[in-house]
């Protein structure tokens, strides 16, 4: 058909009879998001609720009376402690409510931000990256409907989390934990969710990749946390820097102490501003495109990228360096408060009894032992996904091209395995180095450092055992590899709360960490460490042998 001879085209009837605004389809998409996350969403909200309300419920068992709470308040005089958790309100009368805000809110904020960032990215940028959004947008769906639906659901999840936390805390019936303050705390938690949902709504416009978008949002959270940390460290009650952070605003509500609602207006204003910015950006950019143009990389491979191990290093090096940095800082921060720990613990009867049970030479040794155990469990959270990368490479069709070359299965598996094994040792030593350095400086005792490094090293075989278990599952029952997380979760629960839960002794023996002597508090015994190393080696050997015999399960 030529242009000149074109017959008059009938005007399409659709726009006049069908709604065609930019938000068409929002409700349907919101229901779709809820359908996809019908398990994930309740798990997140439930886990956060369990963490905060569960920890709050255990406070009376940790502090027998007001005097012990005051001893704890004295610890908050240390800027390092405030940088970790919060500005410190109501230190003169350190009630359970004040403890909740000072010591639990910061961690809750991290969990809530993690939830909203991951959920928002999952339903926006990840959908675009995989091309699924294209299918949806090709239907009668408005330009802003996708984002609006996700914001509705994730925003509602934030409000729900806050509301349930208020209900949970209010109904605990703790001394000085009243309903009005609990509602304010719930609102403060919800404000964190709303702000970082909005932040993520912007970062998913900026980066064209889901990982990049979550990384940017997480970086924004880290900056907000550091600003607050800087402000809170400089001044009890928070300094100027604290007021530059949405996390600071939430804490400045001073729930349970002064109950101020107005700082949340700042959070609300920022949320509205960011959502507007996100909507504006959505309208300006192409589907599946980001604001940052993709950068070109090297045209040829570095000589290191010549073996499965080289590939493994390339795939894990970024995460490894972030982990090392974070753990070093974590260790340094914990080490810096060692001087105060001694005075604090001395006044705390419950903790003293518990630490006496651990049987340390000094209370400080017991503190170090607990911190090293904590760090070892955290490092496990690096080690497990690193070795399980083998499984995602297999199911993600990326193992096949490697195994079709002159690479044996053992050599291929050894790559990610080596990085998990060596990486966890390096990370735990890095954390212990930070802890040891700043503790040595704080105590004026350089002998602390080698003792802490040794204690860290003793915990490495327990991590290796869990890595070995993951590899054995990968070889023998590849579909069930995620089961290894049950062991990690169990070990963490036993490690943190074992003595508080009042479980029978044998339950602890199921955690590999329970067999490691709590160095430097307990005397060194080689038997469990050697036995655990051999068990880890046996599990790895079994996993590799099974891998050599089984079919590779790659989707057709």
């Amino acid at each position, binding site marked *: 058909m030529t242009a000149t001879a074109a017959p008059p085209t009938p005007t399409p009837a659709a726009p006049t009879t069908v709604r065609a605004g930019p938000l068409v389809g929002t409700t349907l998409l919101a229901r779709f998001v809820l359908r996809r996350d019908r398990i994930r969403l309740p798990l997140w909200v439930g886990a956060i609720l369990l963490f905060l309300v569960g920890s709050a419920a255990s406070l009376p068992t940790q502090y027998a009376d007001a005097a012990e709470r005051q001893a704890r308040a004295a610890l908050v005089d240390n800027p390092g402690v405030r940088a970790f958790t919060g500005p410190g309100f109501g230190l003169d009368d350190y009630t359970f409510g004040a403890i909740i805000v000072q010591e639990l809110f910061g961690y809750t904020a991290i969990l809530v931000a993690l939830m909203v960032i991951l959920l928002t990215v999952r339903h926006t940028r990840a959908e675009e*990256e995989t091309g699924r959004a294209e299918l949806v947008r090709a239907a009668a769906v408005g330009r802003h409907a996708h984002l609006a639906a996700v914001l509705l659901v994730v925003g509602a999840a934030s409000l729900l989390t806050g509301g349930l936390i208020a209900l949970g805390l209010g109904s605990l019936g703790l001394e000085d934990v009243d309903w009005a303050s609990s509602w304010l705390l719930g609102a403060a938690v919800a404000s964190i969710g709303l702000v970082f949902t909005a932040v993520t709504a912007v970062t998913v416009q900026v980066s064209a*990749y889901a*990982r990049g978008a979550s990384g940017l949002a997480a970086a924004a959270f880290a900056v907000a946390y550091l600003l607050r940390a800087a402000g809170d460290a400089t001044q009890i009650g928070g300094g100027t820097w604290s007021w530059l952070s949405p996390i600071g605003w939430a804490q400045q509500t001073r729930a349970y102490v002064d109950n101020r609602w107005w700082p949340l207006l700042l959070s609300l204003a920022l949320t509205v501003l960011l959502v507007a910015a996100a909507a504006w950006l959505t309208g300006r950019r192409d589907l599946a495109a980001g604001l940052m143009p*993709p*950068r*070109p*990389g*090297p*045209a*040829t*491979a*570095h000589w290191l*990228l*010549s*073996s*499965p191990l*080289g*590939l493994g290093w*390339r*795939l894990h090096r970024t995460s490894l360096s972030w982990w090392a940095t974070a753990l070093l800082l974590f260790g340094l921060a914990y080490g810096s408060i060692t001087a105060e720990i001694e005075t604090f613990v001395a006044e705390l009867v419950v903790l003293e009894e518990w630490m006496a049970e651990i049987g340390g030479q000094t209370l400080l040794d017991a503190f170090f032992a607990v911190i090293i155990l904590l760090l070892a469990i955290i490092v496990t959270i690096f080690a497990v996904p690193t070795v399980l990368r083998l499984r995602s490479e297999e199911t*993600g*069709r*990326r193992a*096949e*091209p*490697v*195994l*079709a*070359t*002159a*690479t*044996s299965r053992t050599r291929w598996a050894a790559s990610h395995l080596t990085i998990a094994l060596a990486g966890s040792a390096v990370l735990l030593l890095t954390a212990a180095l930070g802890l040891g350095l700043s503790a040595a400086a704080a105590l004026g005792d350089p002998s602390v450092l080698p003792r802490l490094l040794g204690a860290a090293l003793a915990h490495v075989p327990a991590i290796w055992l869990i890595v070995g278990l993951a590899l054995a599952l990968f070889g023998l029952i590849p579909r069930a590899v995620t089961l290894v997380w049950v062991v990690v979760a169990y070990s963490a629960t036993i490690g943190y709360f074992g003595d508080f839960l009042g479980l029978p002794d044998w339950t602890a023996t199921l955690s590999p960490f329970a067999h490691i002597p709590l160095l430097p508090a307990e005397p060194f015994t080689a038997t469990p460490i050697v036995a655990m190393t051999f068990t880890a080696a046996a599990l790895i050997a079994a996993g590799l042998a099974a891998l050599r*015999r*089984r*079919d*590779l399960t*790659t*989707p*057709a």
Partner: protein
Amino acid sequence: MAELIAARGLTKHFGATRALAGLDLSVAAGEVHGLLGPNGAGKTTTIRILLGLLRADGGQARLLGGDAWRDAVALHRCLAYVPGDVDLWPNLTGGETIDLLARLRGGADPARREMLCERFDLDPTKKARTYSKGNRQKVALIAALASPVELLLLDEPTAGLDPLMEAVFQQCIREARAEGVTVLLSSHILAQVEVLADRISIIRLGQIVETGTLAQLRHLTRTTIVADTAEPAGELARLPGVHELEQRNGHSRFEVDADHLDTTMRRLAEHGVRSLVAHPPTLEQLLLRHYGDQIPTDTAENRARP
């Protein structure tokens, strides 16, 4: 000619599904061998068994003089593989991926790699996450073709390529063949197999149902004849080996079995042939012979292909 791939009685089950049911495959050294069949016929399973990625439940798979499962690593030095669905590491560039895969196989010729990047029009500095399906396919193809190997195992290697790149691919395969490389090319693109393959094996429900050169396979089926004759050739209907006859005022259209072609043409000539068109059987007809009646859903896809 030496047998480079020799599979005998391969069987493979995935749970209750039977993927291979006694598959025999023979590929001679130096030939381009087409493996034809619709999705789910067992092409990919066969190639994965040849690569030692899957273990056959029964039968024997030997290639390049070794056992596909036991000698996998040693054999992989001498062969290259291109899967139909290519997924790459998102944060590696195409160039890095090509180098990595080639090095894992024992190295590649840099000049050849460069030449292939140019011919396939691939920008090797882009991160794999920015590549389209076709570009990911090119990365795998270049990595395979840049390595000096004896055998190429290609599993629907051009599924995402445009017609221009398809032409480049076909040229590269012809060059590889000229250098003495053996190629096993699994495909459901008939035109590709028709122009490239020296011999063809047709796979159906996990078995090879036909193997031979295109000419040999054609011999097994019918030629289509369209003729105009001076007087109506009514007797054609009574001749043995004539099928699907349509006649209208001296115009005849029919199919005839290869072994009755000679007698049929003689009888037709008696009626005074004015015009004559003879179509050799297409690969599509060959396939339909094996698939047409039994599994219509599978052949619908094949029929849609050129």
